[in-house]
């Protein structure tokens, strides 16, 4: 526990009230100074973290810095808030602004209904036009106001397919090259999974989702790429064009996330409706950690936390200061790594390897008990670790994530992982310690055990398809944060090339994306140091440029 600057993590007693209050934090000092300048500028009081009478006096105990696991980065807690971390924002934006659509039906329509010929040359022409229209270029009417290309420079339209013969004839700037992005076996499996089908991964500009939300993505992508078809294939006419537009815009559209129910009020593609199975597909750490399921699992869990906890719970559900600490335990100070490595070794000894245990309630009990008891014993041995994970939400997210990972790794079965995940929350921590998490948290865990194998709407689904979009789950920071642990671990244990969709997997392999999904923690660490360059800023249209 180097972050505490203490050499004995087993010590049970310490001292408080002597660390210098808020001044022990460089960030808080910066904020206080900045706020005083802002007061003069705004003529309105704002942040006053130096005031002892604004609630609890800050910094009564040691303000612990955070080490981002898997990197060499230390930062302050403030750097992990999604508003303060540009990388975290870009992660959310890059997922939101992704529109995936199949091209095969559109091509068939062109050939059969319209009589056009689709060749590699025409596809290249289409892609050239599409990459003009997607950034806001006009193609049909001369007096259409166009968009400043510097505002939309991160938009793109690229192809994905397992059809190497076709892709050999496509301009490589327009391809997400599976062979280049993945190890050989994974690339083969992904190409087989996608088959000869042709998909396009469209990224609308980040600025578009920052001034609206993910609901715009399907429309923006559909309108602009259809305009590109019209231009590339010289399409005209009424009914024919209407039929074609419907086909190209909607018929093979891959909806990343379902809209929320009305009271929550979110459109398609927002984190609430994105299935947990896609977490393992967004995360590309398996492409750079071949044969190392543990590394892939812990990177995926970090991504899951950024996406569902920071982006959904902290931003959409809570707002404001949110609950950064609860999620930070998953990607800081190496705790998740060490514990996952422990249970991985235990599973290998016990069952002879990953995905070797036939899923059963006995196996779920066996693995979940071992993982949970081991971690709780660690908390007992090291009071400093307990102090580091000072809130129940922090401990329960750690326990349940590890329970999900361990049951998934042992069985290779996502439902087994999901049952273990909820079992640890609903019963094990609560009965061992007599403590819950945050208020009302544990009712959902009990519900989710009963819903585990249900396919009734509002209750359950195959775990890969579950998401926070269940009314009982949506506000539960713990349930939504890392339920994906059950799925990622199961597929990693089986050596699968993807979790839910090979197309989604490949779409996020694009190394030109601002956020590199191969290294989620490294990217967030860059964000903490303000070294990550996001897209979607308004610099090109701001004064002084």
């Amino acid at each position, binding site marked *: 526990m180097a972050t505490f600057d203490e050499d004995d993590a087993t*010590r*049970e*007693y*310490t*001292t*408080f*009230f002597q660390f210098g209050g808020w001044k022990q934090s460089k960030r808080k000092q910066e904020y206080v100074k900045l706020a005083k300048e802002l007061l003069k500028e705004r003529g309105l009081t704002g942040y006053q973290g130096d005031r002892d009478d604004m*609630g*609890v*006096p800050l910094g*009564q*105990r040691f303000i612990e810095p955070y080490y981002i696991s898997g990197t060499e980065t230390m930062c302050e807690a403030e750097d992990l808030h999604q508003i303060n971390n540009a990388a975290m924002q870009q992660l959310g934006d890059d997922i939101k602004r992704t529109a995936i659509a199949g091209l095969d039906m559109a091509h068939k329509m062109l050939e059969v209904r319209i009589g056009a010929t689709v060749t590699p040359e025409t596809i290249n022409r289409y892609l050239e036009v599409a990459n003009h229209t997607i950034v806001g270029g006009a193609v049909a009417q001369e007096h259409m106001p166009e968009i400043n290309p510097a505002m939309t420079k991160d938009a793109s339209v690229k192809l994905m397919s397992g059809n190497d013969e076709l892709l050999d004839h496509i301009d490589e700037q327009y391809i997400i090259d599976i062979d280049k992005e993945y190890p050989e076996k994974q690339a083969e499996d992904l190409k087989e999974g996608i088959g000869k089908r042709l998909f396009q991964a469209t990224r609308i500009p980040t600025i578009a989702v920052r001034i609206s939300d993910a609901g715009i993505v399907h429309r923006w992508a559909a309108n602009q790429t259809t305009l590109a078809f019209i231009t590339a294939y010289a399409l005209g006419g009424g009914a024919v064009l209407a039929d074609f537009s419907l086909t190209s815009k909607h018929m093979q559209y891959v909806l990343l996330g379902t809209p929320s129910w009305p009271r929550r009020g979110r459109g398609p593609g927002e984190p609430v409706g994105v299935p947990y199975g896609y977490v393992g597909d967004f995360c590309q750490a398996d492409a750079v950690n071949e044969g190392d399921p543990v590394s892939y699992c812990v990177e995926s869990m970090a991504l899951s936390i950024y996406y569902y906890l920071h982006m959904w719970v902290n931003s959409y559900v809570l707002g404001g200061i949110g609950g950064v600490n609860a999620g930070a335990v998953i990607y800081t100070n190496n705790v998740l790594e060490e514990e996952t490595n422990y249970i991985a070794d235990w599973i290998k000894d016990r069952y002879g390897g990953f995905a070797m245990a036939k899923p059963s*309630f006995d196996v*779920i*009990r066996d693995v979940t*008990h071992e993982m*949970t*008891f081991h971690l*709780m*014993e660690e908390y*007992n*041995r090291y*009071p*400093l670790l*307990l*102090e580091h*994970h*000072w*809130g*129940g*939400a922090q*401990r*329960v997210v750690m326990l349940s994530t590890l329970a999900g990972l361990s049951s998934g790794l042992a069985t290779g079965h996502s439902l087994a992982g999901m*049952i273990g995940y909820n*079992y640890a929350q*609903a*019963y*094990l921590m*609560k*009965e*061992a*310690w*007599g*403590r*819950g*998490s*945050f*208020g*009302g948290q*544990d009712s959902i865990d*009990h519900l989710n*055990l*009963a*819903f*585990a*194998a*249900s396919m009734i709407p509002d*209750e*359950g689904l195959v775990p890969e398809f579950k998401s926070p979009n269940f009314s009982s789950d949506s506000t539960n920071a713990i349930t939504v944060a890392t339920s994906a642990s059950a799925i990622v671990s199961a597929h990693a244990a089986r050596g699968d090339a993807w979790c839910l969709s090979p197309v989604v997997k490949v779409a996020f392999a694009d190394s030109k994306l601002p956020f590199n999904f191969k290294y989620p923690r490294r990217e967030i660490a860059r964000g903490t140091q303000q070294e990550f360059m996001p897209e979607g800023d308004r610099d090109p249209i701001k004064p002084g440029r």
Partner: protein
Amino acid sequence: MIYPGTDRVAERRRTILDKDTKLKRLREVSDDDLVVLLGHRNPGEQYRSVHPPLDELKEIEDPIRDLIEPTPGAQSGDKIRYIQFTDSVHHSPITPVFRGRMYHTRYRGVDTICYSGRELMEARERDLEKYAKELIETEVFDTARTAIRGITVHGSAMRLDEDGLMFDARQRYRYDRANNTVLYTKNQMAIPINRPIPIGAPGEEKDLIANSIIYGISTVGYRDAEELWEVTGKLMEENVKGGLNPELSEK
């Protein structure tokens, strides 16, 4: 009272939850001191009410009224007030989950919610004062490991301070070495009070561990609570099966 297990932690849990077992009184807090600590009214001040006494109200007919006698606070129309306790992980005599369960078995007319370090109790004011007095004066309260906190409740998982007290960022209390007692200088909402209130000496570590209801390395090991995990494991399995198809559940 039913709770699985034959070890001392399970036995202790059964004792606490059993409403017929009288909690051992360890200290005395005067009525006035209690009122000051709660901070809802001044000593001697009348209870505030939200409705006239039930005797003076003409209520709609409801068979439940014939079955359940109103608590004194409800009978008088008292406002609903709260007390909240934070329990250290380092062997506070009770924990939030078991507080919640105990509140339901021992007290009437209460509402409660369980967190990781704290448990809120809401009740009509005179009922609340009666319950709070028992909760502070008896064996379910240790003056160093249990705290009365309406706000800024964290600290339950921190290491203990040099005097063995649970951390409180609002410093509502301090240890009085000369008199071996814990002194509250602020009420549960951390508002300073006009005189310190002594609530007694912290318990001995060995006694706290001996009476702990928390499983773990220093009490009864997690893995040794076999009967408990047999029960939870069965509940898990039956929950999953029952949710899929009630016919699959064991009758």
